[in-house]
């Protein structure tokens, strides 16, 4: 067994040597990929290196923020996550008018509303040590919902022009003409989040709970955080998806209620 350093709470954590040893698992994955001639060896290696570099940088940055910057630092960190998530979400909606704006606003609004509500009401602490990890989970849920909704919205725009124009030709406004397609996009994007909430704890122990248990918190206490995180995720996903569709619908139609073509 590898030597283990002790965390402040007395919880054993792996040493850097142990972390290095876990690289064997990447080697196994690389061997499988090479043997099957999937052409993914380089991608796998780059991902493994990126993961290590990103997490190391993030670890040290978070240490700095936790020690020195307080609430402004944690808000800045969450804002940076929102911007990155907005860029990722926008990629899925390429071709939609103002995709970057829609995605960033959706993730930002969902994160601010859900996280703001719980921090503002004192349900969770405003300390960076809480806001940043919980914020990360919220941003991730909002980003996933944003990405799927953007993708579905784009598909609906590409495939439903005849149906939408048939409704427009009856004198319906753009938002009403697109409403069935917006509902379809929303249903698809929220279904995974709802499924995930309904099986939480049964298929895998979720991240927040796992982290707390490893840190020495009893499972009966850890579930409180996890329930909040699940509800935050549901709320953030729903808000992000609805924002994508609301903004998307508005930007999809011009003043004369004509559906704009997808940008190339």
């Amino acid at each position: 067994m590898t030597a283990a350093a002790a965390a402040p709470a007395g919880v054993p954590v792996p040493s850097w040597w142990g972390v290095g040893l876990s690289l064997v698992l990447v080697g196994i994955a690389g061997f499988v990929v090479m043997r099957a001639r999937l052409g993914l060896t380089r991608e796998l290696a780059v991902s493994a290196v990126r993961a290590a570099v990103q997490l190391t940088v993030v670890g040290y940055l978070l240490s700095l923020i936790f020690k020195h910057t307080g609430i402004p630092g944690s808000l800045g960190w969450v804002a940076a996550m929102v911007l990155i998530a907005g860029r990722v979400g926008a990629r899925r909606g390429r071709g939609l008018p103002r995709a970057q704006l829609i995605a960033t606003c959706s993730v930002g609004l969902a994160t601010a509303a859900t996280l703001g509500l719980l921090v503002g009401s004192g349900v969770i602490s405003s300390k960076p040590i809480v806001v940043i990890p919980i914020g990360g989970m919220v941003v991730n849920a909002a980003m996933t919902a944003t990405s799927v909704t953007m993708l579905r919205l784009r598909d609906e725009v590409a495939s439903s022009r005849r149906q939408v124009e048939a409704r427009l030709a009856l004198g319906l406004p753009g938002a009403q003409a697109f409403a069935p397609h917006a509902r379809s996009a929303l249903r698809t994007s929220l279904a995974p989040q709802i499924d995930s909430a309904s099986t939480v704890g049964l298929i895998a122990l979720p991240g927040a709970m796992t982290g707390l248990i490893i840190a020495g918190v009893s499972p009966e206490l850890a579930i409180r955080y996890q329930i909040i995180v699940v509800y935050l995720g549901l709320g953030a996903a729903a808000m992000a998806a609805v924002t994508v569709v609301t903004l998307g619908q508005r930007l999809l139609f011009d003043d004369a209620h004509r559906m704009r073509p997808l940008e190339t």
Partner: protein
Amino acid sequence: MTAPLFRLDGVTVRRGDVLPLRDVSLAVSPGVATALVGPSGAGKSTLLRLLNRLEEPTEGIVSLHGQPLPSYDVLALRRRVGMLQQAPVILEPTVLADLRLGRPSLTPDEAATLLQRVGLAPEQFLDRSTDGLSGGEAQRVCLARALAVGPEVMLLDEPTSALDSFAAATVEAAVQGLLADGLSVIMVSHDLRQARRLADDVVVLIGGQVAAAGPSAEVLDSHESEDVRRFLAGAS
């Protein structure tokens, strides 16, 4: 001379480097059927879509009853200027729900009258699911749906081109019924025989420009321009 229903003055539509319509000036009479004919890519559907503002001219003015189209509320305009697309687009699970799409207050009796107008027996179709409709039936339901909002003019974009000859005949009969009721109809047609059967006036578009326009017998038989003669000879 009656005032024109629609008037186009110097209308050009530009999409990037492409000009689907170039400097088109045209008057369309009310209470008659006007057919827009021409080869593929001549700008027929683009011209039709200008009339209910699904397209906007890059240059020029389109007027309805002497007023530029942008001076009308666009949603009200689309209720006055109905449109039937090339292939039937059914939007609701039942015929009655589909007919009510543009007018939710439509009563079953009013819906039955609309179905009769397009040659569909209300007792068979009113409560029917839209799933099993044939192409011709579906296109006539779409026509009835467009009529439900009370248009004064119908735009028909090749309404029979996606149908077999039997279904096409049923749709054509429904259109003839509307014409007999005095409704103004502007239709894009690829079928010169159909244009001759239905239209009072014909506009020939070639390369985004009006090559000929006038009473159908005159335009389809006189063949003044070389381009028109070549198109008519190829299309008939």
